[in-house]
């Protein structure tokens, strides 16, 4: 299969998945609750107000028609009004999305760098104490849920050893950089405001470490095992036979093919970051879409719930498509279309 047709197929598939997701979320937010208007306004709201909201939400129409109106709004970026913040949901999401992106991107960078590093170390010193230490750590690390790590950090750094800030994105009193990308660290760097950069950076550390801890060790394990597996391959013996130095073999010939399984799991791990962010953002009071998501969920704000789930679902699908493309570029068997198995 050619790369272009592979990508096209992948793209069509993801559009279909997002469409399916929208139906599922519509069912969760509009059909399962019974009467969303009543749920939104609470049991004590007068009947005529509820009736008006029902008409506004097209709840008096048959279900397919309701879905049509709803998806029309969603496609034009209109998710309705949030009953929790009393503002348009799309505004809330636009405002909070960049905070989550900053956190997830930073956590993703941490994850990749440390996973590759630990993976290389463990594979290089296979069965020595370094390897055993990293493997033991990773069994422990994989089992630490992000919210547990976040709570422990909160306890440690918020209460007993206050060297890093534990709440929010910026200390009070530090001026916000002008909004360019929405990522505070990047914006303040562009502005040349190093005080704000350093402060924003310090605020990023704990939440992103808490987020990336689990996926990091999982990726490190995959990196190690695929490197160890590739070490036994014939092409390495050939390269050794040519007299290529160990270092060049390690980084040029061994690392690249070993990264492929890591990258293909990374799609799942990146989305794990998004979902783990749900609790981590709440704990660190990080004003992102996931904290917003938890808030609207706990307040049963159906417009908010459907918007957050569909936006995150779409992000998840897009991330996975991007990861597939990266894998396709890394793996010549896919890029050159010689593998019939895809």
């Amino acid at each position, binding site marked *: 299969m050619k790369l272009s047709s592979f990508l096209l197929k992948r793209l069509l598939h993801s559009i279909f998945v997002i469409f399916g997701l929208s139906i599922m979320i519509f069912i969760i937010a509009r059909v399962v609750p019974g009467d969303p208007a009543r749920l939104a306004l609470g049991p004590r709201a007068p009947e005529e107000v509820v009736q008006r909201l029902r008409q506004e939400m097209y709840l008096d129409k048959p279900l397919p028609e309701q879905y049509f109106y709803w998806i029309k709004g969603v496609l034009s970026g209109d998710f309705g009004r949030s009953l929790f913040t009393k503002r348009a949901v799309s505004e809330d999401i636009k405002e909070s999305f960049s905070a989550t992106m900053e956190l997830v991107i930073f956590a993703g960078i941490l994850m990749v760098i440390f996973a590759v590093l630990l993976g290389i170390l463990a594979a290089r010193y296979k069965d020595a104490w370094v390897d055993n230490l990293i493997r033991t750590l990773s069994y422990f690390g994989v089992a630490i849920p992000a*919210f547990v790590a976040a*709570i422990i950090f909160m306890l440690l750094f918020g209460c007993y050893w206050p060297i890093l800030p534990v709440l929010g994105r910026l200390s009070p009193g530090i001026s916000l950089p002008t909004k360019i990308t929405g990522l505070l660290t990047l914006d303040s760097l562009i502005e040349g405001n190093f005080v704000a950069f350093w402060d924003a950076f310090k605020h990023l550390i704990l939440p992103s470490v808490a987020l990336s801890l689990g996926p990091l060790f999982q990726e490190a394990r995959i990196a190690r095992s695929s490197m160890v597996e590739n070490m036994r391959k014939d092409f390495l013996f050939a390269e050794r036979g040519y007299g290529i130095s160990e270092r060049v073999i390690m980084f040029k010939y061994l690392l690249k093919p070993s990264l492929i399984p890591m990258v293909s799991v990374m799609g799942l791990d990146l989305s794990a970051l998004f979902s783990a962010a749900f*609790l981590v953002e709440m704990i660190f009071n990080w004003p992102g879409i996931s904290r917003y998501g938890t808030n609207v969920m*706990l307040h049963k704000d159906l417009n908010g719930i459907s918007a957050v789930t569909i936006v995150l679902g779409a992000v998840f699908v897009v991330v996975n498509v991007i990861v597939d493309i990266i894998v396709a570029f890394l793996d010549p068997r896919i890029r050159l279309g010689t593998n019939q198995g895809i």
Partner: protein
Amino acid sequence: MRNSNQPNNSIAISLVRPKSIFWHNLGKNWYKFSRNPLSMIGLVIVLVIIISAIFAPWITPYPEHAGPFVDFESAGQPPSLQHLCGTDNIGRDIFSRIIFAFRGALIMAVVVLALAVPLGVLLGLIAGQLQNTWIDIVIMRITDVFLGIPSLILALAIAVVLKPTLMNAMIAISVTWWAWYTRLVYGMASSIRNEYFVIAADLIGASKFHILFREILPNCLSPVFTKIALDVGWVILIGAALGFLGLGAQPPTPALGQMVSDGANNITFWWMTVFPALAIVLAIMSFNLMGDGLRDMLEIRME
């Protein structure tokens, strides 16, 4: 995603269904499993957790502390010999509550998997058998949609729309969980259906039902069991996350996530947070270790 014990490209053609490798050489498998110290550690911790959860009312020092119990005189005591993990802000023994919380977590894992696994396996089998028909397409596209969103987010969305009870939390998690098994079994079933023993059974006129459940299903079971062992830990994780947000078992019933969140609200009593957190990590880790051991033993490649 196939068992290396089965004929793959071998020249010898077997027309007889291979015996399920899990039960076939139990002794040999146990030897392989027990050779790995990490798997054994995992198994021992899992057994300790399960046994202590079952016998919680008899082995915990203060079984009445799992219910509505208040003793302000002994509130907020640090860990000691009387209270191994200290007491919480209303004087309940945290160690006893953790053991009782394991009960809830294990029940949750069992119920979720008991709902999700049969459904997922059945759909995967059917879709794998009826490949390239509209049934296959419908089932697998729905599966893709369910896998298209992280389980935690979907489970949260469903759990909040329903009432906050333990049963609803379990239903919410099950709804997100079956699809993984469908995909796993689908992949296996669609390769096994081309094996000669299946074709042979088809030729001598075996019914679809027989082929599905007597020929194909037994050969899918080892990876399914391995995934179940691994998933117990992950269900406990999602359950704890829901409990942390106040969804799931309601107080005073102890739940691990809810205990961590209580601890976060009483940050001066560090033991209120640390021990339930450790309990979550321990549970997830031990099931992971055991599941990894099973996977190595059966030589399964899951991903």
